[in-house]
């Protein structure tokens, strides 16, 4: 276990050290102490290493992650794991807005609640939230799965494309062109697998699936009020 004290070496040195592991992956376990809400911690990683951040992080922690596993032992600021490609990011606390925004792949697990715009414009990432999520989540979500074990806020899945949204609790309101969908066996399978990967004990059967009604896929003047 390598320990990096962010306060003493600074952001640039810390990320440089982690990025250098991409080529030489002998040191696979890293711990970052004293994050104190700093931005851009462990962003742009591209190696199968495991980084644990002891404390809360600022904007864009684990941004554009590839291969790495990043554990945040605290709360995470806006845009955590934004545009993630692969690997795994686990937030033990709450996530601020834009968690997993535009992510292309990998798994983001939020043990607490996620704020607004969780999974905005997601493009293939899987996101599992143990708590609730805020408004405008999965806005323009293109593909991937968003699993919410608690409740969802206003305008869930507004203008979404082909992402699958699973919510166990209440949905305050659905966004434009988002509708309730049938849970078929393949969806139960997907959910079961994601919950297992996230280490969350919940019955897939208790979830409701939401997705695009596909009414806005091609412009029609009769839908003009939705624009």
């Amino acid at each position: 276990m390598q320990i990096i004290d962010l306060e003493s070496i600074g952001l640039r040195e810390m990320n440089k050290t982690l990025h250098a592991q991409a080529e030489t992956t002998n040191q696979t376990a890293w711990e970052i102490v004293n994050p104190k809400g700093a931005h851009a911690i462990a962003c742009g990683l591209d190696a199968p290493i495991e980084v644990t951040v002891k404390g809360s992080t600022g904007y864009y922690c684990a941004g554009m992650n590839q291969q790495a596993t990043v554990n945040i032992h605290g709360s995470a600021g806006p845009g955590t794991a934004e545009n993630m490609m692969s690997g795994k990011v686990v937030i033990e606390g709450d996530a601020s807005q834009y968690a997993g925004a535009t992510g292309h792949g990998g798994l983001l697990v939020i043990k607490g609640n996620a704020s607004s715009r969780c999974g905005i414009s997601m493009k293939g990432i899987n996101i599992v939230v143990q708590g609730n999520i805020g408004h405008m989540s999965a806005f323009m979500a293109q593909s991937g799965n968003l699993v919410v074990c608690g409740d969802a806020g206003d305008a869930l899945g507004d203008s979404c494309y082909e992402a699958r949204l699973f919510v166990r609790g209440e949905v305050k309101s659905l966004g434009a062109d988002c509708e309730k969908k049938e849970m078929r066996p393949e969806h139960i399978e997907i959910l079961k697998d994601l919950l297992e990967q996230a280490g969350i004990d919940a019955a897939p059967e208790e979830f409701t699936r939401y997705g695009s009604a596909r009414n806005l896929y091609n412009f029609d003047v009769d839908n003009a009020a939705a624009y």
Partner: protein
Amino acid sequence: MKDPSLEPKLGEMLTSMLITMTDRGPDSAGIAIYSGETKGRTKMTIQSDDPEGSFGGLDAALEKVVGGTVKMRVKSTHAILEIPAGTTAKTRAALAEMASGIRVMSRGDSLEIYKEVGLPKDVAAQFDLSKMSGSHGIGHTRMATESAVTTMGAHPFNTGDDQCLVHNGSLSNHNSLRRKLRREGIHIETENDTEVGAAYLTWQMQNGMSLGQALESSLDDLDGFFTFVVGTKDGFGVVRDPIACKPAVMAETDQYVAFGSEYRALVDLPGIENARVWEPEPATVYFWSHNDTPTTHEKAA
């Protein structure tokens, strides 16, 4: 502050929060602090670019006008006038008549506002903010979007007695609203969008609304992006626009309730590791009041 034993540390805590947020606003900084209320007396914070010239003998001169004791504490470019209750308008008129370049930053029984152009650490040092104590306070660092970087354009903006407002975001209908409020007789000093937000609340409260109602109606009448924090004699409130893109983080412990644009601002607060940390919902008015103790709670006013 819920725990009065922390009150002497208020200035220190706010200073640390302010300096941490320097990246977000290097242009100017300000602080509103609520402290030291005296029965039968009220306060006015004034500012001058030439404090020696403007403040010299000012207390004696004002005493003649208001007909009572006037105490003055000078802090760099600012001075706190302590005047008999009910003489605020008289004092303001007298200051205007003297035409000595004095500007009124705030008025109220316990509110004091200090703000200047410059980096937060320099502004904090200029006013010795870290030594201040109080029951609650609001700090702000500004990255100006459109209006000028000046002392008067810095936040917080004083609205009514003991009320102040800070803002993160950009209002999109402030020009027409400013014209409307000016026609209604509301004094607006700058071209700053936030001042219009502050003046709007003042106007609504003059028309009989409570602060909570005024904040509720701001959601209908103000366009654009905003996270507002307002201070009152008893506490403070938070409201975000319905889109709620600008960041806002709250933390609560048994000792205090705190607000920051980022978690980073809160990291040095005592016991933050175990605080309840969350983000205020869009289009929802939150308010915390000392009068509600022991259990402070959020509510749609």
